[in-house]
């Protein structure tokens, strides 16, 4: 009986404690929900975590976060944060699409943002990136750096979004070296493909055995294996989403930055300042939404010529002189 009393007592205490906590931050309570793979995937999710953290540190505002463990938790996580008055709620990942449609409709007064997916509701901001533009640039770098004229690409789950990365990359490679050969592999057809570094490593190794000496990955947690395999073989990997240059200094040529962090940061900031706008926004090279990373870990790998060529291409893409084909426009890729 004593145990029960203690428990009931604790529960009651807790109830009041939660309330008090809620009161203290009643004004502004942003929340971010990560996709499968978790906030420390050193890639996509980590980028959104970093955006939220940067905002939190700059404005001294705490944010709520949640890492789902299964697909079915998406809706519960969204609804719970909304029900507890969190606002705005940012989710990262295309797989949140249907959950977002359901929950955002239930909570019209809450602001939502979703990355990598378009949800057409008056209180949802949809942010997508021109990954093909960033991939084009790292593709150029890969081709210019490659000594064998062969480069590789390892994707995560085989979906149009990842084909978009691949297609931009191939276009960039061919732009720099029309004779270059590109090997492509996808890790799988389910969510598990985002988190299988063993297989990622094997795929990269396979490509390197075929002669590739630069391998680009767009595979979330799987990419850790790709970069590790490249480093083990003394070859070069290219990171994605976050800046992954630090993972294997000297063996990561660059990282294709996808500024998910900026999207999260902006959503939080706009909402705090009352400037939150719903609707559809595309972040490309022009908006600094995508790019490539150069830091102390890889600056020796990139020559002046490469820099110049890439910067040149970047300007041309922004100006529209170079058109990079978006795979998702017609679900096909002109280059392979």
């Amino acid at each position, binding site marked *: 009986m004593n145990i029960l009393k*203690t*428990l009931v007592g*604790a*529960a009651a*205490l*807790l*109830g009041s404690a*939660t309330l008090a906590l809620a009161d203290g931050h009643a004004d502004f309570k942003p929340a971010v929900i990560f996709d499968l793979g978790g906030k420390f995937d050193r890639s996509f999710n980590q980028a959104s975590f970093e955006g939220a953290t940067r905002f939190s540190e700059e404005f001294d505002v705490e944010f*709520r*976060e*949640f*890492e789902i*463990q*299964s*697909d*079915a*938790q998406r*809706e*519960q996580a969204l*609804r*719970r944060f909304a*029900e507890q008055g969190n606002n705005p709620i940012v989710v990262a990942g*295309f*797989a949140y*699409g*249907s959950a977002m449609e359901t929950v955002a409709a*239930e909570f019209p007064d809450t602001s939502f943002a979703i990355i990598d*997916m378009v949800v057409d509701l008056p209180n949802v901001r949809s942010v997508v990136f021109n990954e093909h533009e960033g991939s084009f640039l790292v593709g150029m770098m890969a081709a210019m750096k490659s000594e064998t004229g062969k480069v590789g690409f390892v994707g995560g789950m085989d*979906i*149009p*979004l990842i084909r978009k990365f691949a297609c931009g990359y191939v276009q960039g490679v061919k732009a720099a070296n029309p004779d270059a050969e590109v090997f492509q592999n996808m890790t799988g*057809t*389910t*969510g598990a493909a985002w988190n299988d570094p063993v297989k990622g490593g094997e795929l990269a190794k396979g490509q390197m055995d075929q002669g590739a000496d630069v391998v680009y990955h767009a595979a979330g947690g799987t990419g850790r294996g790709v970069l590790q395999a490249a480093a083990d073989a003394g070859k070069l990997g290219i990171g994605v989403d976050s800046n992954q240059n630090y993972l294997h200094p000297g063996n990561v040529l660059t990282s294709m930055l996808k500024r998910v962090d900026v999207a999260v940061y902006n959503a939080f900031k706009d909402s705090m300042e009352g400037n939150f706008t719903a609707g559809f926004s595309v972040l490309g090279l022009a908006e600094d939404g995508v790019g490539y990373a150069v830091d102390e870990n890889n600056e020796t790998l990139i020559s002046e010529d490469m820099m110049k060529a890439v910067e040149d291409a970047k300007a041309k893409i922004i100006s529209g002189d170079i058109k990079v084909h978006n795979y998702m426009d017609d*679900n096909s890729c002109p280059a392979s």
Partner: protein
Amino acid sequence: MKKSLPTWADVVLIPAINVFLAFFVAGLVVLFIGEDPIRAMGIMIQGSLGSSYGIGYTLFYATNFIFTGLAVAVAFHASIFNIGGEGQAGVAGVGVALVCLTVDQTHWLLALPLAIMGGAVFGAGWAAIPAWLQAKRGSHIVITTIMFNYIAAALIIYLLNNYLKVPGAMALETRGFAEGAQIPAMHEIASWFGASISRTPMNISFFLALLASFLVWLLIWRSRIGYEIRAFGFSEKAAVYAGIKPVKIIMIAMLLSGALAGLMAINTVMGSEKRLVLDSVLGAGFVGIAVALMGRSHPIGVILAALLFGVLYQGGAELAFEIPSIPSQMILTIQALVILFTGSLENMVRFPLEKLFLRLNRGTA
């Protein structure tokens, strides 16, 4: 073989001590993480039972576990360990989805019975092959059902990728079911009676689960086939002597088991997600093992154990929200401890208790 334990000790005391031990060890784990186990417990109880929102989710999870628990329990009665609830429920999800996608322009009153049939038939069908192999070829059903879980996973991925998912879409899921295949959620049912409760995925399937529990009780303890199933479970040789055909019993028990596991797809696929997603079972097939073990394979025990696991799942999710340093794998750990203590380490409690009762009996005799 004289029994040395009174029935109440067998069905109440031992499970209670075992669950207590499991939670005690879980509490130690929380301490190790550096959090307060009493506070964690408080959050779990508050989060799962402290609001209509929490209760709704708790009962939503419990609904799944009642179905899978019953599935394991029915097979247990025939002395069959069906570890394949995960695959059976998964394949049943395909069945439910196919029905719903076909008839979702009609009305849920039509769609529900059809979907129940779809889920039950697909679930039973997936159980039928291991059952047949056990009955006719003597293949170890534990191993075959494990294998069939993996085969089911591959099959579902294949079907979703190639046939079921919305063309061009990225998410590996079917289109959402239209109005005509959406069964009433609990908050809708409540609103018919003028009550207002939080929106949760809990739906009419909960009552279906209770009904299924009653029917299972009737079947196992009151029907002729139940009498035969239990007899077979106690002794296959005796069953053969009594003219009970093993092949028939294995098939019936496993088909029922698969069908019951399959019915959980009504709750998840039709009730909550309203579409077929890739991982619609969420490990409930395995939780069913723990539920059946704890519930001593009796429907009432199964319901109680399913509620406990519902509290565990919902409370555990709340825990992960409230104390991010306790990840949701805590649930998995507690689940493992419950299976360990109530299942494989049961004799750790039983042996000393038997000795104790023997001594008590001698003292009074």
